[in-house]
């Protein structure tokens, strides 16, 4: 919403400057977005007069002018055809920034003659799109007058109107708030009715749905044409294009009073009834309207349609845009003026469906004051009679505007209770009255233009914002007992630990979209209908992700394409199994594209084992029962590479899957392999056992030296070596402290299809040193336990 200071002063008695108005607006909740002040922008430009103009010695089209300026007489070279003696125009000194050219003037010779400044055209001052000469101003202007003043330019304030305040879409409404904020005195805004001199020959019909109420009158014998300079200037200042006097009057009132109107050329109406109804739909489809913007719109049965010809011909989209067939032109002699009240929801929907965002649509969608329907018509009548002459009919009103807001109870003490502001009750009442509220004892009735006010809390806001939020006290929150164990849930605490643990292990945290491409989601077991967005921001972000891996893999791919192939990225975030609240999981996912710098020390082992180390360390850090987890390499989801991936879990509850990603998936994502990854579902990690005390069990360091014995077993190649280690460890849970696999061998000496697995068994004597016989017995138990799995001790 834009307006000028002089327009505001039509409604507000004030000495305030533009800056003061803008500040007061901001602090009253009218968020100023931009103040465009030509006086500042054109500060360097002033009125000047040419006293001599002679032909340039070296250029046919240039003239050397002697110019009286604010800086004294100056010699200026000018190429404009109208640079002549006696012309009053605009002068820019050296050093001025010329907005229309985007240059700062420097002193330099033009074909050998130094120009000490510049004479400006309208386009150079951004006052016209193009011009064919320097400005020609009235001779009455004295030399040195600021350009903005000479051109009648004014500061324009542009601010954001919040959807609760449609009354701010009119300058009069802004003035009312500023008066209540103490910036000045509101002028009388009452509109005197203009009596009609004959019966309105045009009947009006409304159905109460498409249009609640419709007032109108005929004004005959008008003389339409361009509107006067003051009206054109006012519209142009806020970026509106003057059309003709009748239309300009409706635009003026739309911005002055937030009251949209429409004018019809009555001679072009068919029949003598105007009817507001819903759109007609037949077997031929929706009826259509060619609107004033020249475009053709389908009129759906949800839209408000203005029609004539006994309801047969659409002549407008009610509250949105008029039709081309009955628009007013310079030839218009009889004008029918409409001031109606259209439903906000219907109008908003019509705006969305048609894509029309007109000033009228914007206002009706937000709610136009139902108390000023006929008032708007009377104001329009007065202006039309003033500008175009003519003779008005009586006013016809059809339908009912919505009932005015009801009174409710309000206790002024509630202001302090809710806002903390200690305001005397009289001041509260005074502010409310200035805003148009009726206050009667404990009852407050909102004005018809404040349909956003429903109860006492709204009134507290009115009082608080006009007193100023700067007066709010700063009151410490009451102390509350904090939970001794911190405020985070187990899941939150685990995510927090995991983040820092992974970062410490060399992983870089990233945050990627919660969405992905549906076909990608399908590759990762997702892509269900309930997780596909109806209005995605981009076609490749149309589905909620079933896994954080694809986005991380693609991020690794982007890094590689930029020349940085080595990446260890992780993310802690949501994945979606269904669209229900319980269908969301928090995962910790990582993707590793191992391309470490080559090193004279040689290549590292298979990177999957480094990954496994990180995964196990992560599980340990977040308090997962690592020792109880079972590893399986079978039955994994299809995006993992078979044989090089595994999942760790408790029974059927998988906590984490890790390993290499399937080459087929990488190909589909256009990312070069190998790429490894892991994904841990935080919800699947069991809650730690609750312990009342923080104390740990007493430390029992064994007094005796541990000893170790090595074994080698030959076993079927497919048998996981980890099974052998697990069996060995189970042979004597008291004495065997640890079993380490230190070698796996296939080749000469080991039968085809088999492998040799070397185990180091660490024995921790507990009570006394073990005798040779005891050690032999233990070794036999280890061999027996492992051989149960089909392995043979290697001879």
């Amino acid at each position, binding site marked *: 919403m834009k307006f000028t200071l002089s327009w505001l002063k039509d409604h507000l008695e004030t000495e305030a400057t533009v800056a003061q108005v803008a500040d007061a607006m901001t602090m009253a909740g009218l968020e100023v977005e931009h103040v465009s002040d030509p006086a500042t922008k054109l500060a360097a430009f002033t009125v000047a007069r040419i006293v001599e103009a002679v032909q340039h010695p070296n250029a046919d089209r240039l003239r050397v002018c002697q110019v009286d300026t604010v800086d004294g007489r100056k010699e200026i070279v000018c190429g404009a055809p109208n640079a002549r003696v006696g012309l009053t125009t605009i002068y820019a000194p050296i050093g001025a920034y010329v907005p229309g050219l985007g240059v700062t003037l420097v002193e330099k010779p033009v074909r050998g003659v130094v120009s000490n400044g510049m004479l400006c055209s309208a386009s150079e001052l951004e006052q016209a799109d193009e011009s064919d000469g320097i400005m020609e101003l009235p001779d009455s202007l004295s030399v040195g007058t600021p350009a903005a003043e000479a051109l009648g330019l004014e500061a324009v304030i542009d601010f954001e109107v919040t959807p609760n305040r449609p009354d701010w879409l009119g300058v009069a409404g802004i003035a009312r708030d500023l008066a209540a904020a103490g910036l000045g005195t509101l002028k009388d805004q009452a509109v005197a009715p203009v009596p009609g001199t004959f019966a309105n020959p045009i009947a009006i019909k409304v159905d109460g749905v498409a249009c609640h109420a419709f007032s109108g009158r005929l004004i005959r014998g008008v003389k339409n044409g361009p509107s006067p300079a003051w009206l054109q200037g006012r519209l142009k200042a806020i970026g509106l294009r003057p059309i003709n006097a009748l239309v300009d009057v409706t635009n003026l009132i739309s911005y002055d009073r937030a009251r949209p109107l429409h004018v019809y050329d009555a001679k072009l109406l068919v029949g003598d009834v105007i009817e507001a109804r819903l759109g007609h739909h037949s077997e031929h489809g929706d009826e259509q309207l060619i609107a004033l913007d020249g475009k053709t719109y389908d009129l759906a049965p949800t839209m408000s349609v203005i029609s004539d010809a006994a309801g047969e011909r659409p002549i407008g989209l009610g509250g949105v845009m008029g039709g081309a067939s009955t628009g007013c032109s310079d030839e218009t002699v009889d004008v029918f003026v409409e001031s109606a009240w259209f439903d906000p929801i219907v109008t908003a929907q019509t705006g969305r469906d048609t894509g029309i965002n007109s000033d009228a649509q914007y206002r009706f969608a937000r709610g136009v004051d139902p108390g000023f329907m006929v008032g708007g018509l009377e104001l329009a009548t007065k202006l039309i009679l003033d500008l175009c002459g003519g003779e008005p009919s009586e006013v016809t009103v059809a339908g009912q505007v919505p009932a005015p807001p009801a009174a409710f109870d309000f206790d002024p003490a509630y202001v302090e209770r809710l806002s903390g502001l200690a305001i005397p009750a009289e001041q509260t009442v005074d502010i409310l009255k200035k805003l148009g509220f009726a206050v009667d004892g404990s009852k407050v009735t909102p004005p018809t233009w404040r349909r956003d006010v*429903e109860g006492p809390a709204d009134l507290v806001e009115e009082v608080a914002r006009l007193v100023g939020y700067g007066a709010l006290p700063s009151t410490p929150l009451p102390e509350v007992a904090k939970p001794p164990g911190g405020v985070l849930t187990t899941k939150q605490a685990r995510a927090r630990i995991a983040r820092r643990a992974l970062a410490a292990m060399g992983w*870089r945290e990233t945050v990627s979209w919660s969405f992905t491409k549906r076909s990608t989601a399908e590759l990762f077991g997702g892509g269900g209908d309930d997780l596909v967005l109806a209005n995605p921001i981009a076609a490749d972000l149309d589905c909620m992700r079933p896994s954080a891996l694809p986005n991380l893999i693609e991020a690794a791919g982007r890094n590689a394409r930029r020349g940085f192939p080595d990446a260890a990225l992780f993310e802690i975030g949501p994945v979606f199994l269904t669209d229900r609240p319980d269908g969301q999981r928090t995962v910790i996912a990582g993707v590793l594209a191992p391309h470490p710098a080559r090193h004279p020390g040689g290549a590292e082992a298979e990177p999957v084992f480094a990954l496994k180390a990180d995964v196990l360390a992560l599980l340990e850090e977040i308090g997962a029962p690592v020792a109880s987890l079972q590893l399986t390499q079978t039955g994994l989801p299809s995006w993992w590479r078979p044989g090089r991936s595994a999942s760790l879990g408790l029974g059927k509850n998988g906590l984490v899957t890790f390993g290499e990603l399937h080459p087929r998936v990488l190909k589909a994502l256009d990312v070069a392999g190998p790429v490894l990854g892991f994904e841990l579902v935080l919800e699947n990690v069991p809650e730690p056992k609750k312990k009342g005390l923080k104390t740990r069990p007493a430390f029992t360091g064994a007094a005796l030296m541990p000893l170790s014995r090595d074994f080698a077993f030959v076993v079927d190649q497919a048998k996981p070596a980890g099974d052998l280690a697990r069996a060995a460890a189970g042979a004597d849970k008291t004495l065997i402290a640890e079993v380490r696999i230190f070698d796996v061998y296939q080749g000469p000496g080991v039968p085809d299809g088999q492998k040799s697995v070397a185990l180091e068994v660490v024995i921790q004597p507990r009570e006394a040193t073990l005798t040779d016989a005891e050690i032999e017995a233990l070794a036999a138990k280890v061999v027996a336990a492992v051989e149960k799995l089909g392995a043979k001790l290697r001879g």
Partner: protein
Amino acid sequence: MTDLTALEADLIGQIDAAADVAALEAIRVAALGKSGSISGLLKSLGGMSPDERREVGPKINGLRDAVAAAIAARKTTLEDAELDKKLAAEALDLSLPAVPRRKGSVHPTMQTMDEMVAIFADMGFAVAEGPDIEDDFHNFTALNFPEKHPAREMHDTFFFNRKEDGERMLLRTHTSPVQVRTMMSQQPPIRIIAPGRTYRCDSDATHTPMFHQVEGLVIDKAIHMGHLKWTLETFLARFFETDSVTTRFRPHHFPFTEPSAETDVQCDRSGGELKIGQGSDWLEILGCGMVHPNVLRACGIDPTVYQGFAFGMGVDRLAMLKYGMPDLRDMFAGDTRWLSHYGFSAFAAPSQAAGLS
């Protein structure tokens, strides 16, 4: 009687000339071994008279001690030389690179969220959560957005496809639905923050289709706007880690608060750099207000008994303001160079004791 002096000179000469530990050992055996020359002399003492023994004994013993000491000294010298030689042979060129180790980091948005949690936890706020996929009730209706009101349009909501039963799920446009879920599941007093992902169908340098918010909610019997102001002033000063954050509360409109405000902080934008806590410009930081009675009612809380405030702020945006990232989209691009530049050390966990960053 052998000339002890000559023997000593001979042996010392041999010892000094010994080229390695093995040669030295041969000399030791020849002199001090079972049948060595000095051992032989010591043995001869047994056949001497007491007077002779008294005279010769100390000399022989002295010879033995001198030779043994010379051997030990020479041995040390030889061993040192051998060690030096071995060490010289095993020298490494330490200008060679270290074993490559990846450096990790924490994402600045998550670091910022941790900072916020640390500050609010200290003020007694618990951390609440809710789902990203919401329904119309929790995201709009319970928060006092009228049906088809323009305020809904302004939210650029991502919708899922409408189902046969007419239900249409959406991606939460703010973290405020967590307010609703909290109030519906818990009686006042309530003091929570709710950090999380939020979504709007919008994309440019300052808007991304996904971003992070932290919501705050305090409900009790006598909480008023002055408490809100103190809470946010305290938070902002601690967050920006400066003594002097000047804040400004401006009236605004949100359907779910009444009165509503936006909070600005004073800043200096001169020189193309943003400095919080000085200057004369204002920067909008967050939206807040007193929870609308209709919202309390929708959540089953009696607005004539309880009242309180709520606020919501953009985590990514505050991270950008504090740490100087120019473009919001980079936050979600996963560029390892950017992550390395703007990321935080694993060990920079924010705490009230150590400072936030």
